[in-house]
């Protein structure tokens, strides 16, 4: 299948998956006990207001009709009003999303560099103390949930050693740089405010590392075992026999094919980081999408919950497509197929 053909089929398929997801979300939101109209206007609103909202939200129509209206609005970018902020949900998402992206991007970078680096190191010095230390670290990283890392980091590096600030994106008294991308670090650099950049970076470190610990460990394990598998292949022995230096063998010929499983898992890990961030953003009071989603869940704010899940679902399917393309680039033997489970 050609790349273009593959892309078109995967995108069409993903759209259907997202439509399915929207149905699931819609059902969850509607089977909820209680009247959504009453919840939208609050306990003390008079009955006629509730009736009007019921009419507006098409709550008297059968469910499929309600879904049609909901979907029609959603496609046009109208995801309804948030009960908590009283603003359009879409505005809220646009505002909180960059903070999460900044966090996940750094976490993803750390996971890629740290995971592949540690994994390579471990495979290069297999069965030595280096390998053992990395494997021990990997095990700890895989079994410890990120919110527990976050708590330990806050206690150790935040409170005790005071190396890093523990809440928010910028210190008090530091003015936010002019809004361009929404990523504070990038905006600060664009505005040439180097001090602000450093401050933002210091705020990013702990939550990003807490989020990255699991993926780093996971990627290190996978890279190690995949390199160890390939290490015993004939072509590696042939290259060594030809007198090619160990560094070149490892870096050029062994690493690339060994990265295939790592890249697949790394992609999924980065996409899942957006959802794991729910707890980490809560702990660090990070004003991101996950924090917003958490707040809306606490207030049973259905419009916001649905929107956040849809956005995360869209990220997940997009990342899956990107991962498949990268893996196909790394491994020419892989034939692209439209659906994952086929």
């Amino acid at each position, binding site marked *: 299948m050609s790349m273009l053909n593959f892309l078109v089929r995967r995108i069409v398929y993903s759209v259907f998956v997202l439509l399915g997801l929207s149905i699931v979300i819609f059902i969850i939101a509607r089977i909820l006990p209680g009247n959504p109209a009453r919840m939208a206007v609050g306990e003390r609103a008079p009955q006629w207001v509730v009736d009007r909202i019921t009419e507006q939200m098409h709550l008297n129509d059968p469910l499929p009709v309600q879904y049609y209206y909901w979907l029609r609005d959603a496609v046009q970018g109208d995801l309804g009003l948030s009960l908590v902020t009283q603003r359009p949900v879409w505005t809220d998402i646009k505002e909180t999303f960059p903070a999460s992206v900044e966090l996940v991007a750094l976490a993803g970078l750390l996971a890629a560099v740290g995971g592949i680096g540690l994994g390579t190191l471990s495979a290069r010095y297999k069965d030595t103390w280096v390998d053992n230390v990395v494997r021990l670290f990997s095990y700890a990283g895989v079994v410890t949930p990120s919110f527990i890392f976050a708590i330990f980091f806050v206690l150790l590096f935040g409170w005790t050693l005071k190396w890093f600030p523990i809440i928010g994106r910028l210190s008090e008294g530091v003015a936010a740089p002019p809004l361009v991308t929404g990523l504070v670090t990038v905006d600060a650099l664009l505005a040439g405010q180097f001090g602000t950049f450093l401050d933002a970076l210091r705020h990013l470190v702990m939550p990003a590392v807490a989020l990255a610990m699991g993926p780093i460990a996971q990627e290190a394990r996978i890279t190690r075992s995949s390199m160890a598998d390939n290490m015993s292949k004939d072509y590696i022995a042939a290259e060594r026999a030809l007198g090619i230096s160990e560094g070149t063998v490892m870096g050029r010929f062994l690493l690339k094919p060994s990265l295939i499983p790592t890249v697949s898992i790394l992609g999924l890990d980065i996409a899942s980081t957006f*959802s794991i961030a729910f707890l980490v953003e809560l702990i660090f009071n990070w004003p991101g999408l996950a924090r917003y989603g958490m707040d809306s869940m606490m207030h049973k704010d259905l419009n916001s919950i649905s929107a956040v899940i849809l956005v995360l679902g869209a990220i*997940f399917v997009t990342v899956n497509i990107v991962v498949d393309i990268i893996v196909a680039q790394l491994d020419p033997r892989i034939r692209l197929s439209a659906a994952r489970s086929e």
Partner: protein
Amino acid sequence: MAEQATTSQGFATTFTAQQIKQLERQSRRENLGRSWYKFRRNTLSVVGLVAVLVIVLLAIFAPYVTPYPKHAGAFTDFAHAKIPPSLEHPFGTDQIGRDVLTRIIFGLRSSLLMAVVVLALVVPPGVLLGLLAGYFQGTWIDTVIMRITDIFLSVPPLILALAIASVLEPNLWNGMIAVSLMWWPWYTRLVYGLGITLRNEYFVTAAEATGASTWHILFREILPNTVSPILTKMSLDVAWVIIIGAMLSFVGLGVQAPEASLGTMVSDGAKYLPDQWWIAVFPALAIVVVVLGFNLLGDGVRDMFAAEEI
């Protein structure tokens, strides 16, 4: 009644039904012995097994082994609040004077209960759907089941579990339902992947040729060959379910106060960092230990079923 069978020397001999039963029993015993050997070969698996046994026993006998069983529920003793770890309270006391160690051991109960209930709710339907979709690969049954599975797999399980738990009344049971609704697709996909290969095996074709019922083929021919991967996944999933359960209760969507749960203890205790660090740190460590124990055990189970590698 006699049947033809072949001995290990290759000679055809005649066995009575009873002898065949006995041979079957013997080979089963040998298989078990081999599996146990593969399991205990790795010291870490044995460590995991012991840890899990200790955890389970502690949870079951919590009222008898804990120093202050009354502290498991709504108990307050402000005179003894926030006491640092000491001989009387090895892990200290919390903000309202309850023994942290006692509450951790009681907290194990909800973690384990969650894992058991979720897996019990998730595995049968997940496996059944996977069997059906795999056996009827290429038909509308496959399409419907696997496309729905894809939809559920298109978002990380944590978010939908959080969302479902948040729209329901927050408590342990609804938390379990929320996690279960998200977890079955993993089993469906696992069994589906195995099923589409197994359906072309000779023993399945043979059963079809003799006119065996679909029920017989699904449950007697295909299912037994999927048991080891399913058990392996289950043993590794226990740790994941416990983590997700801890996450749910951490954000207040799982076990409700005053009942003890590890996640709630961490989130409540986090408010008293850094001065009363023990209130949050010990429950957090407990989560790590529990998850580590189940992970080591799970790895052991995987080794046990893994084909012999050199």
